[in-house]
């Protein structure tokens, strides 16, 4: 294998197993020609290895692999192994392993004998990449159906070969045997190894792709529900995995951006002489307000980007208020859009008749992705084509975005997906992809670009800041009879994924979407039966909407953590006002109405809430608990969320240091129901980490800025959860499905994002339980907590 071909080992391995007939098929069918080597070395074509690295790239055009061809999904090799090709990417949750479990089950092949290749646009069908916790819920279905169809076709072939009707055959791990006559047998490898299926699938789109075969009932699944270890982990701990950051191409050069020093600044001039004599300097590339320096070596590019003298003009008016004035700004701003409120019953009348009225306002600042690795991509412009090596979770979208941005036909662009840092939505990986491609096209050589830490922390997309007003009315029995939720999100011009007119380089070059996205806020996603309820959302805009570091984009359940922080904190405030136990108060809201179509969802919610308090050992009492003596005050808080069809209920136990204001989240328990669980180990780990991500957002994370620029630029100015903060105990209870044993099994639902939602409120509720002080402004950094404790004389 060419030493420059830096692709993941498991991909190399699978490609090595790929056999001639499939290659011929792929070529002759005109579907796509696979070239998987940065310099045009095609490992799939005989003699390719003998070529030198000087061989020009021979690949392209790159039409989309046809999802209606079984051969696009599954290859069976002569040695009774199989390779699965799926149009998904893995952001660290181990989805590839789960896909293999499901597909191996449908195909009747041992899990260990399968390989999974993910998300590279020219060899896997377009399933959109990753997002929305949909891997198991939506995208695994066409994979399962394709695998079931492969089994059906193979059994039919076996039937012809053995001269025995298909219904008299049985399959176990690639071996088809005649029932009652086990000596009569044939293997998958013998039947099709080295040959193509030539089976057409049907379906209007990739999500509904199917063959004739039906998937197995859940009771017949063997690997599904087990916890085989993730296949990607060994190479991640021994240093052998080739990540997207590790791509090295012959002739490759390194680029670094020079970002505007002020939001909305206009580039007046560049003094190239300030860097021209520097070692390895190649060129300054600039268009509009986008500036990058290209050098032979990485450290040279870093040095030159720091040294380059540029002149910028500040915008006439401030791009945004300072972060300490943000919520005043939000409350006074004129909304850019307002949704029609969701109204149940008659809230106004109910509020008028309520015995007790509770009001509260919650504030959630901008929070960023701040990936552990700053954004990066490498692009190769050989032969008028464009290959982008990226960890972007939506490789297919990046392909379309890059093609449009560069004005190239899509068939000339491909994106090779490789592993990278956590992908929790619309990260700056999108921006880096277009930057690398543009730079490579301009300079005619492969270019690797990577953002520096300050760029990543300041300029990556942000989860919108929220200001939420809530009102509730209790009757004489302490029952919640009226409820009002009103959220304002700073989300105007929310950037989408890989949009050629919103990626940062496009904005800086003056390419802008004609109609900015209007953005959104979200409403609570609980299943409470509240008789009179109004929920409304509004979006507001900052003064500067283009070329701003405060640009919003999806971050892990985009608005859920913010709105759930408010709504589930408020439920606790209501419970406290009613002098009710917070768990029992929630339970009453779920049991009080069983008449509508939400009854089943409420029953599942109740089962999850019961599971979490049981695992925690919850004792019934209202919050706050009687104030203890000593420096450390401890308390417990609960919160719950329903997302899509998945439910999470979480309990946080905290210790609050009344001298320092420091909050330690000491213990976490989550009960989680996402229907059918494919890999319990992966699920538990995903849920653990999703909860801790929200712990970090609750305690530490806030993007801060003055009226010119973002001032959160590194891990000191933008702290995150650390080892020292880690809870001493985390428990995940998998509730797994339907509390009613008479109903059929549930399918798999999305897992990760639901677990992010309740934690912010669970912590606020625990702090209240411990101290009697209600914190409504995130994050709960020491100084803010201490000030609140002092103000309440705690």
């Amino acid at each position, binding site marked *: 294998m060419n030493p420059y071909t830096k692709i993941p080992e498991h991909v190399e391995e699978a490609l090595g197993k790929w056999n001639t007939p499939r290659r011929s098929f792929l070529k002759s069918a005109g579907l796509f020609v696979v070239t998987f080597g940065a310099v045009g070395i095609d490992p799939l074509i005989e003699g390719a290895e003998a070529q030198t690295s000087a061989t020009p790239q021979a690949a392209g055009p790159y039409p989309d692999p046809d999802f209606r061809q079984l051969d696009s999904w599954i290859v069976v090799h002569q040695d009774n192994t199989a390779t699965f090709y799926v149009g998904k990417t893995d*952001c*660290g*949750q181990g989805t590839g392993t789960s896909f293999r479990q499901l597909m191996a089950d449908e195909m009747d092949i041992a899990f260990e004998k399968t390989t999974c290749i993910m998300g590279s646009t020219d060899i896997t069908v377009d399933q959109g990449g990753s997002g929305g916790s949909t891997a198991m819920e939506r995208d695994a279905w066409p994979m399962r159906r394709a695998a079931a169809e492969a089994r059906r076709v193979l059994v039919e072939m076996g039937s012809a070969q053995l001269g025995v009707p298909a219904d008299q055959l049985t399959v176990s791990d690639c071996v088809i045997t005649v029932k009652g006559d086990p000596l009569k047998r044939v293997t998958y490898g013998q039947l099709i190894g080295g040959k193509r299926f030539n089976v057409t699938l049907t379906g209007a789109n990739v999500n509904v792709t199917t063959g004739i075969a039906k998937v197995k009932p859940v009771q017949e699944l063997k690997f599904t529900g087990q916890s085989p*270890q*993730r296949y*990607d*982990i*060994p190479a*991640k*701990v*021994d*240093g*052998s*995995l*080739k*990540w997207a*950051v*590790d791509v*090295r191409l012959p002739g490759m050069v390194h680029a670094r951006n020079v970002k505007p020093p002020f939001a909305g600044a206009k580039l007046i001039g560049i003094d190239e002489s300030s860097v021209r004599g520097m*070692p390895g300097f190649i060129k300054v590339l600039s268009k509009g307000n986008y500036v990058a320096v290209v050098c032979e*070596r*990485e*450290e040279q590019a*870093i040095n030159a980007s720091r040294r380059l003298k540029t002149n910028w003009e500040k915008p006439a008016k401030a791009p945004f208020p300072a972060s300490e004035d943000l919520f005043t700004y939000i409350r006074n701003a004129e909304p850019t859009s307002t949704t029609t409120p969701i109204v149940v019953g008659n809230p106004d009348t109910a509020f008028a008749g309520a015995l007790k009225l509770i009001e509260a306002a919650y504030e959630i600042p901008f929070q960023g992705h*701040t*990936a*552990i*690795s*700053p954004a990066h991509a490498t692009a190769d412009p050989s032969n008028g084509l464009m290959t982008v090596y990226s960890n972007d979770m939506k490789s297919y979208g990046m392909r379309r975005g890059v093609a449009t941005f560069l004005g190239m036909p899509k068939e000339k662009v491909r994106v090779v997906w490789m*592993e*990278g*840092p*956590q*992908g929790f939505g619309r990260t700056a990986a999108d921006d880096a992809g277009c930057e690398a491609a543009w730079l490579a096209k301009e300079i005619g050589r492969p270019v690797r670009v*990577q953002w*520096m*830490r300050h760029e990543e922390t300041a300029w990556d997309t942000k989860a919108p800041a929220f200001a939420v007003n809530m009102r509730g009315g209790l009757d004489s029995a302490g029952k919640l009879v009226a409820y009002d939720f009103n959220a304002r999100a700073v989300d105007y011009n929310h950037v989408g994924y890989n949009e050629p007119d919103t990626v940062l380089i496009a904005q800086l070059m003056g390419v802008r979407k004609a109609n900015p996205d209007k953005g959104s806020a979200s409403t609570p996603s609980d299943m409470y039966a509240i008789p009179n309820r109004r929920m409304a959302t509004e979006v507001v805009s900052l003064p500067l909407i283009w070329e701003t570091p405060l640009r919003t984009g999806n971050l892990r359940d985009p608005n859920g953590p913010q709105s759930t922080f408010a709504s589930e904190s408020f439920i606790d405030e209501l419970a406290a006002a009613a002098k009710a136990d917070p768990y029992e108060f929630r339970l009453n809201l779920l049991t009080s109405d069983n008449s509508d179509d939400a009854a089943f969802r409420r029953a599942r919610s109740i089962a999850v809430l019961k599971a979490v308090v049981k695992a925690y050992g919850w004792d019934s009492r209202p919050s706050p608990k009687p104030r203890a003596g000593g420096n450390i005050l401890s308390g417990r808080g609960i919160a719950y969320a329903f997302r899509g069809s998945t439910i999470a209920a979480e309990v946080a136990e905290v210790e609050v240091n009344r001298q320092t204001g420091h909050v330690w989240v000491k213990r976490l328990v989550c009960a989680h129901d996402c229907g059918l669980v494919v890999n319990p*180990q*992966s699920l538990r*780990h*995903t849920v*653990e*980490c999703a909860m*801790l*991500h929200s*712990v*970090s957002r609750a305690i530490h994370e806030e993007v801060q800025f003055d009226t010119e620029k973002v001032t959160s630029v*590194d*891990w*000191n100015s933008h702290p*995150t*959860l*650390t*080892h*020292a*903060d*880690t*809870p*001493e105990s*985390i428990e995940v209870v998998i509730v797994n499905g339907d509390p009613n044993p008479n109903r059929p099994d549930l399918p798999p639902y999305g897992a990760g994002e639901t677990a992010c939602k309740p934690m912010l409120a669970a912590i606020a509720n625990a702090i209240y339980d411990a101290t009697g002080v209600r914190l409504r402004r995130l994050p709960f950094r020491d100084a803010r907590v201490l000030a609140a404790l002092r103000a309440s004389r705690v």
Partner: protein
Amino acid sequence: MSNTTLKVNGSTHTLEVDPSTPLLYILRNDLGLQGPRFGCGLGQCGACTVIVNGQAIRSCITPVASVKSEITTLEGIATQGKLHPLQQAWIDEQVPQCGFCQNGQIMTAKALLDKNPNPTDAQIREGMNKTLCRCMTYYRIQAAIKRGAKAIADARPATEKEVVA
């Protein structure tokens, strides 16, 4: 530019480089190593960690010319084709989510255990505190360190164990 000799994972390399170049870029771009990775360039996150003289150091802020002793990277801690007990513990505990930071986590943990084979929970938290993970795998990392420490202790000859005890 000047000649710099580096000993890395048992091999010696002589390179002509700017002596002020951070070690990280030499390891990655000249020696083709993939364990140490760029995370911040500021010595704040630990993704670039390598071990020199038993110390876990941040290669992103270490000038290459300042390193006189042998450098061990993630690729160099397995012995005779067998994973280091910490690497095995990382697999057994299924520690990574994305895995990008795990180089720094494993190398920092190794330096910690080399100095203190049986750390308390508090010592693990303290010793690992500046090594960041944005997937938040801390809980499992701490479990894996304890598992690795036990495996290392169990593999030690009995006489040596008594001495340690």
